[in-house]
């Protein structure tokens, strides 16, 4: 099966700046793929190479097997893009903007009109169809960008920070919508600053930093690499740190904090039952137990910070 996106050693230079410094990624068809990275990591440049707004300096990039430069027309026809910036035609009411976009993709006028109405209803702004983009509220503008990406019924939906600056309700609406699309077979490439978003939605994420791929893994795999914190509260606080033998090799630290036992360990969730049994056998009566999992955000910060300090030597 051909990959939705396949890049090999993809490079983009702006003078001395290497925006993309040898990115090799495979986004399987039908997947929900996240692209994470700090500002300036190269996420938007990566996307813009795919749709033809940025010309690559080297390497290969193909969308469903179509090279993005040699077969640009086929490649672009597969992609629906909701960009970060509000790059929308200001002259026409939004329904016409959608009809035009559909037309550019070869969809005949009658069908374009039907589809425009359909996607406006899908994102919940059909009532504003005769309004120009400038007069929409911030949240509606985001919804419109999604509608414009959907009007051509793309096989690959690319969402660049789709929930930047939107309220909680809208964020959840958008999540539901794109999850449904993915379940119906659309491949989704999502870039986001909200790690929670990637954690919740993506099958697989790539972490990008300074134009390089630092890691590709599922959110769960990444979280397993971080340290979790187990906090145990006793009926009678012990005077010294009890011996903890459980989960040897996973445990990173054991401390007493205000009478509570604080254990940090990798895969803390797996370790907790053994720890409880051991403490119980040792005669400690437990009244509360809290396991806080490391967040993807913490793992992400750790990975991208580390990269920064060694970036020059790699």
């Amino acid at each position, binding site marked *: 099966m051909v990959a939705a996106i396949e890049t090999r050693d993809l490079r983009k230079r702006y003078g001395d700046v290497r925006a993309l410094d040898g990115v090799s990624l495979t986004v399987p068809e039908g997947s929900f793929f996240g692209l994470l990275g700090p500002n300036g990591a190269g996420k938007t440049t990566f996307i813009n190479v795919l749709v033809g707004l940025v010309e690559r300096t080297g390497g290969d990039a193909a969308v469903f097997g179509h090279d993005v430069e040699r077969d640009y027309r086929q490649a672009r026809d597969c992609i629906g893009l909701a960009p970060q910036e509000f790059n929308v035609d200001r002259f026409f009411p939004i329904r016409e903007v959608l009809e035009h*976009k559909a037309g550019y*993709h070869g969809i005949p006028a009658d069908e374009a009109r039907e589809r425009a109405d359909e996607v406006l209803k899908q994102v919940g702004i059909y009532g504003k169809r005769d309004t120009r983009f400038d007069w929409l509220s911030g949240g509606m503008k985001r919804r419109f960008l999604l509608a414009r990406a959907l009007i051509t019924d793309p096989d690959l939906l690319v969402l660049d920070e789709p929930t930047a600056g939107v309220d909680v309700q809208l964020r959840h609406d958008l999540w539901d919508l794109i999850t449904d699309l993915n379940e119906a077979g659309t491949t989704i490439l999502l870039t986001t600053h909200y790690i929670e978003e990637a954690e919740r939605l993506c099958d697989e994420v790539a972490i990008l930093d300074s134009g390089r791929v630092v890691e590709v893994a599922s959110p769960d795999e990444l979280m397993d690499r971080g340290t979790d914190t187990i906090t145990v509260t006793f009926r009678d606080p012990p005077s010294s740190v009890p011996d903890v033998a459980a989960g040897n090799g996973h445990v990173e630290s054991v401390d007493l904090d205000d009478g509570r036992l604080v254990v940090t360990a990798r895969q803390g969730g797996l370790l907790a039952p053994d720890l409880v049994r051991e403490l119980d056998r040792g005669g400690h009566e437990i009244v509360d137990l809290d396991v806080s999992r490391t967040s993807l955000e913490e793992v992400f910060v750790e990975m991208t910070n580390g990269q920064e300090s060694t970036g020059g030597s790699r």
Partner: protein
Amino acid sequence: MSVLPVGFKTLTRREILRFLRRPKNTFVPPLVTNVLYFSVFGVILGQRINEINGVPYVLFILPGLVVLGAISNAFENASFSIFHGRWNEYIDEALTSPLSYTQMALAYVVAGATRGLFVGVLIAIVGAAFTSVGAARPLYLVAFGLVVTLLFSGIGIVGGLWADDWDDLTMMNQFIVRPLVFFGGVFYSIAELPATLRAVSLLNPMVYMVNGVRYGFVGQAEVDPHLSLLVLSGLTVAVVALDVALFRRGYGLTE
């Protein structure tokens, strides 16, 4: 079923609708300007000026004013639309679509030329209110009308892609298009110029355009209309080919 691809037709239609829906910006200004030109230069001053080659002065300047309006509007439409799209980045809507680079460039060329032709016809109608005018050589009139508007729409695309700022657009119209037009034999006959100036004038492409269109209206020209049409057509083909090449290269459009 039309032979033209849906994508090309849609972009051309979008470009034409853009100026049709804003008559205040596109049709009213040339209307007002040309009523002034015909009143002041044609009627008030024109009465003191002798006929040129047996043509009354007001009729003599009509073809030149038609050319002036047609080409500046063709130029302005193409350059403005491209630059505005770049400025607000919505040109991305077309750029990220499966339109071929040739289709993109041609859509802008055709739409700009269409606006030029509309304005040219409008000015001819205004002129007809001031003097009796017909089309002595209608086929030549149509041919020259098409070729000059296509040419300047094509040049407008280069301008719209090259400009970095709004001032650049104004500058091109004020300092390049207008001087060429004013020294292009719109208001005087180049036959009346001293030999040197006459020779210099013949290097100005505008002379051929004005004369060609004048030939279409009154059946008289100071330069051979066939040669003019040939040279202008060649120039138009070259400029449109340049437009396509610039789109392909992403000049002013991609990073």
